[in-house]
């Protein structure tokens, strides 16, 4: 019975926290965040502990009139993922903003609002609710991107906003077309009611385009590097790890519901091809960067490409589909942890060095060993070396490609790994150079390095839990397309 309250609470608690930290004085805000974080942790654990899928109907209005919140195992996995990323980032932010209270006061409420939006998106199963959560996440992300007020950050935030607005309208247009032809908005009812045909396909393509724009898939990626690379470090971590995953998860859910009804084979191959190009192009651009945070931001462009590869193999009724689904989830988790860790570690190293170029990393292996270690571990996951989550994702992708009989993807996956290794080690090798004599090192709180290390360890060793995770999630995808909750 009480579980019914847990799902809305997952959205309401961060909203409440956002309001509270906004109105409270600085010295109350910090302990308040601890309380909030603990509350969220308890809540998420309670949700995970409840084994069966949970469904809450808000306000007593059943679908298609009302809104439902659904917590299947995928949603629970994503909630835990969000919790872990936020725990590390909030911890980091306390140390990061210690000298700049103004920025801290801007950061805290927006960060909690973003958490509410992410949770809401992961729990929603209704197309319009997904639109609203997408907007909420997007607008808070824009606000976070502009946090510092620096002109370059403002420009990046404006570019991000325009892309988000365009995506929003495209999404709404696709939604309008679908609603017009079926009269329902809940995803499972839509899947049942939609008529296969060009009109529905067009609507779906609009939705996919909008979400691809929000996830920064090549060639719609140009807004991402300045926004992610130019933001303050905790924001960069949140943007790269979480915000782009929100739009991607919505796309994944749409795909799982609509692929059995519409003929999405060509679209899937198209998305995968763009993903492949993103992997190569993003990696090449990352290799050319002279600044660490821009290198990490372009790395996001490349890694987003990996997210889109499984669409080539997610065909209902094929054995490759379950493996491709696992690959998507593993890539979400692996990239999220690794990229957040990488940004957080980069922030520590840049703050210690006092400048943002790669040469500022010299000697860091002995001066900031924890941060370098975190950077290296995160890099291991991005490259895809065992036993990281990134490796499990690539292993699953390789298997899915071979199961689907599309072995050329193997070449791309291996090339991508080598290119990633090239830019990761390009950054890391600076750390092993002897430190320059004149070093204006600023002290950096150890807490910041530890929060980066926490996420990096999750990324680099999470692959050991792959079998357990895959077995747990199997019920979501086994027997697809019949068994969707």
């Amino acid at each position: 019975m009480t579980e019914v309250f847990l799902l809305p609470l997952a959205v309401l608690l961060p909203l409440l926290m956002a309001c509270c930290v906004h109105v409270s004085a600085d010295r109350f805000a910090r302990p308040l965040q601890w309380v909030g974080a603990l509350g969220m942790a308890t809540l998420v654990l309670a949700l995970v502990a409840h084994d069966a899928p949970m469904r809450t109907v808000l306000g007593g209005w059943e679908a298609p009139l009302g809104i439902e919140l659904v917590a299947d195992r995928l949603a629970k996995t994503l909630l835990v993922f969000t919790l872990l990323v936020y725990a590390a980032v909030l911890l980091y932010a306390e140390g990061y903003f210690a000298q700049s209270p103004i920025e801290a006061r801007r950061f805290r409420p927006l960060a909690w609002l973003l958490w509410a939006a992410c949770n809401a998106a992961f729990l929603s199963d209704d197309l319009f609710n997904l639109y609203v959560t997408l907007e909420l996440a997007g607008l808070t992300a824009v606000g976070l991107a502009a946090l510092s007020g620096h002109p370059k950050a403002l420009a990046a935030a404006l570019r991000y906003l325009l892309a988000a607005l365009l995506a929003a309208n495209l999404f709404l247009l696709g939604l309008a077309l679908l609603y017009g032809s079926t009269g329902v908005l809940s995803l499972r009812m839509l899947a049942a009611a939609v008529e296969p045909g060009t009109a529905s396909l067009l609507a779906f393509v609009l939705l996919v385009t909008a979400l691809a724009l929000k996830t920064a898939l090549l060639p719609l990626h140009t807004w991402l590097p300045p926004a992610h690379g130019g933001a303050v470090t905790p924001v960069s971590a949140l943007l790269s790890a979480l915000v782009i995953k929100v739009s991607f998860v919505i796309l994944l859910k749409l795909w799982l519901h609509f692929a059995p009804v519409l003929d999405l084979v060509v679209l899937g191959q198209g998305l995968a091809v763009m993903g492949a190009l993103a992997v190569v192009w993003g990696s090449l651009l990352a290799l050319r960067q002279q600044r660490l945070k821009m290198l990490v931001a372009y790395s996001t462009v490349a890694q987003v490409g990996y997210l889109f590869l499984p669409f080539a193999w997610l065909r209902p009724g094929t054995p490759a589909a379950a493996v491709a689904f696992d690959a998507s989830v593993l890539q979400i988790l692996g990239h999220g942890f690794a990229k957040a860790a990488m940004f957080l570690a980069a922030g520590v190293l840049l703050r210690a060095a006092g400048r943002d170029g790669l040469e500022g990393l010299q000697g860091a292996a002995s001066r900031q060993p924890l941060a370098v270690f975190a950077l290296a571990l995160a890099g291991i996951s991005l490259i895809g070396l065992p036993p990281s989550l990134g490796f499990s994702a690539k292993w699953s992708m390789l298997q899915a490609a071979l199961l689907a009989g599309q072995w050329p993807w193997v070449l791309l996956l291996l090339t991508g790994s080598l290119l990633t290794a090239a830019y990761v080690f390009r950054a890391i090798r600076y750390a092993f150079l002897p430190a320059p004599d004149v070093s204006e090192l600023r002290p950096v709180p150890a807490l910041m390095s530890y929060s980066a290390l926490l996420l990096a360890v999750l990324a680099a060793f999470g692959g050991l839990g792959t079998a357990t995770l895959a077995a747990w999630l199997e019920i979501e995808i086994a027997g697809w397309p019949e068994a969707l909750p």
Partner: protein
Amino acid sequence: MSAIAMDAATLWWVLGTALTFLGLGVMLAAPALLRKLLAFNVMGSGVFLVLLALRPRGPDGVADPIAQALVLTGIVIAIASTALGLMLARRYHLATGRDSLPEDAPEGTDD
């Protein structure tokens, strides 16, 4: 020229589509930030029109009221987005004196 017989719904979705494309075009092409935001609103209005035009009708011919709820929500979101956009554009203008983004992507800064 014969009068084109059109009922209200068709008129709305034709207009809506036209507005959508108009807004889309200007949003992509116009350099000035203010014009992009205005174009976003025009495009949004177009999409709302399409939504209303296409909404399904119940068994007794009464249009589904959910569409209105959706449009209202959409309008609220559009207002919030526009407000944010205007605030950012104004701050940007105060900081740099520009009213449009530089054409090539600026590099990120450290913090």
